[in-house]
């Protein structure tokens, strides 16, 4: 049996107890400080997470040589469904979009910003996906698809179809608005090497 005073300090219970307390405390402190900074930088209207009125503009996603990563590029006016929205209107629309995305449980098939399930494509840059063909028909195609995914299935040769979620037209439009807004978030280059719809 080893006596207590024979134990070297770095193997002692007391040393590791203090280490556990101080290191955990320090890490929590650092996390809290970083959280303040991050929350500020991801608030809507910041450089990384644009204001909801960005849906009134053209959004692109291009490689930035200096940052060595892809980043969203906000262009000239390009209203969604032909309407320029005020700040409040854009907020209401985005809010409905987010509530619908949650209530319809999109995240258990799709990924959003890469998080979710892997049964269906990632939606981070869905607004910019070349699969919609051309900008001129994109909004209509997206709306038709969301309202009746079974008959407008986009399975790319597989038979994995989105179920009909009984979306109202307002809900479907709000989801499209949400996808457009989400594509404007600076995601540090994720996804990389993405080829956008012809701008």
């Amino acid at each position: 049996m080893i006596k207590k005073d024979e134990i070297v300090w770095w193997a002692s219970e007391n040393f590791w107890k203090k280490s556990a307390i101080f290191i955990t405390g320090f890490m929590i402190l650092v996390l809290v400080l970083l959280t303040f900074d991050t929350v500020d930088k991801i608030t809507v209207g910041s450089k990384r997470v644009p204001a909801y009125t960005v849906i009134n503009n053209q959004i692109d996603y291009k490689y930035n040589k200096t940052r060595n990563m892809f980043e969203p590029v906000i262009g000239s006016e390009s209203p969604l469904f032909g309407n320029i929205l005020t700040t409040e209107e854009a907020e209401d629309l985005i809010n409905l979009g987010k509530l619908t995305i949650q209530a319809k449980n999109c995240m258990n098939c799709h990924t959003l910003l890469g998080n979710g399930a892997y049964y269906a494509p990632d939606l981070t840059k869905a607004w910019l996906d070349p699969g919609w063909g051309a900008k001129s028909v994109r909004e209509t195609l997206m709306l038709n698809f969301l309202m009746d995914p079974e008959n407008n299935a986009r399975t790319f040769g597989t038979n994995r179809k989105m179920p009909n979620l009984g979306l109202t037209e307002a809900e479907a439009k709000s989801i499209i608005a949400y996808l457009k807004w989400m594509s404007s978030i600076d995601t540090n280059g994720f996804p990389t090497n993405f080829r956008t719809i012809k701008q």
Partner: protein
Amino acid sequence: MINFHALNTIHLNSGQKIAIKYFSMAIVIFVVQIIFGILAGTQFNNPEFLYQIIDFNVNRMVHINAMIIWLLYGFIGSVYWLIEDEAKTELVGKKLANFGFWILTIAVLIVVLVFLFIQDGEGSHASIWLINEGREYIEAPRWADIGIVFVMLIFFYNIYATFIKGKWSGIAGVLVLDLAALAGVYLAGMFYSDNISMDQFWWWWVVHLWVEATWEVLVGCIMAWVLMKTINASRRIVTTWLYIEVTLMLGSGILGLGHHYFWIGTPEYWLTIGGFFSALEPIPLVAMLVHAIYDSGVKNFKSTNNPALAWLIAHAFGNFFGAGVWGFFQTLPQINLYTHGTQWTASHGHLAFFGAYATINIAMFYMAIQAWRGNIHMGSSLIDNGWKWKTSLTLLNIGIVGMTIAMLIAGYKQSFIERAVEGSTWSGYFKAQSDPSFMLAMDWRMTFGWIMALGLIILIWDLITIGSHSEMKNNKSKLLST
């Protein structure tokens, strides 16, 4: 003498009587998890299966939520199991603990029924409060969140007050602080934001700080106690190891949170912080592995409860490989850029949750059944050589490892085709999904899933029968320590 080894709660203290309720419910929900895993997996390969009846999102949601909930039931049960022994006093709030159990169980039942029969709602706050919050892992509607917090508070009070009344120990201190943190971080997931970056930022506080921090510390506490019981490890050694684990676990895991902040709109400094600290996360798992294996080896792997010890070893390896190695594979941002949101994550998730958490809960089930039958010896004296626990352990572990490897192969294909070659477009996604080797890997995933299901059936059969009168060579208790 016929019923000498029948299940009898007379052998249990009041904390343990509550624990067996939690354990029983945990096993029921474990079965639910596997059933819905098989449904979701089948649907993945055959999309017509249950299409528009129970869609993939519903099956998958029940699958992952059942997992979270049965593990929680197992943890709560484990803590109630050890509390009176560790605090050397009776549980303070027995009725309260029972009340908490029934509140949680009724809430879980309602949530599952709503998930299955109502499934989704219109885009409104009412849907989020009453039907489905639509956020992975914490889909339970808001009313249920409040219920969960209420039950966790009851649980926390009970444990804290019992230790205060009885004897305080190193394990007690870590456990109480950890439970407070575990309940506290759940609050971070209980609000709505229309900003998805903000939403996911706080959502990860719950998901990461549960599974990669507070849950790990909790199983560290359980492990410390079980090692003292099964192989008679010294309290000083297990407590010192527990502090080492906490230091390393929270020293790396708290800022390791940053590896979820690479691509959700959060600033670029998280690429460095998250990459660095999450790369350190396997270190405490190495420590835990060394600790468990070394201590068991010192005792020549002799124990009073062989199935429990075997599952503890499975836990040590599973935690190290599943959480540690599989997590490390893709934790650096340069790699994660291609693997994030692919089958790599599913591969890691399966091995990590099973290896780190399911295993230790199963070890606790065996601890419980041993005492429930009158503290019988479950070392080497099982009449049939313990073929049932050995078979179920083998099948469950072969099943999970097989699924993990299959999904890893699928993940390699997916990140290569969809991400690297095709640049993450929708057509790239489907190109990867219909690649022959991806599809073959997903078929293998199903095969191994069925192997797990078979293992689970034998596990339950074993838990029901092990140590009963007919199973014993002799019915005399032979505890190692006596």
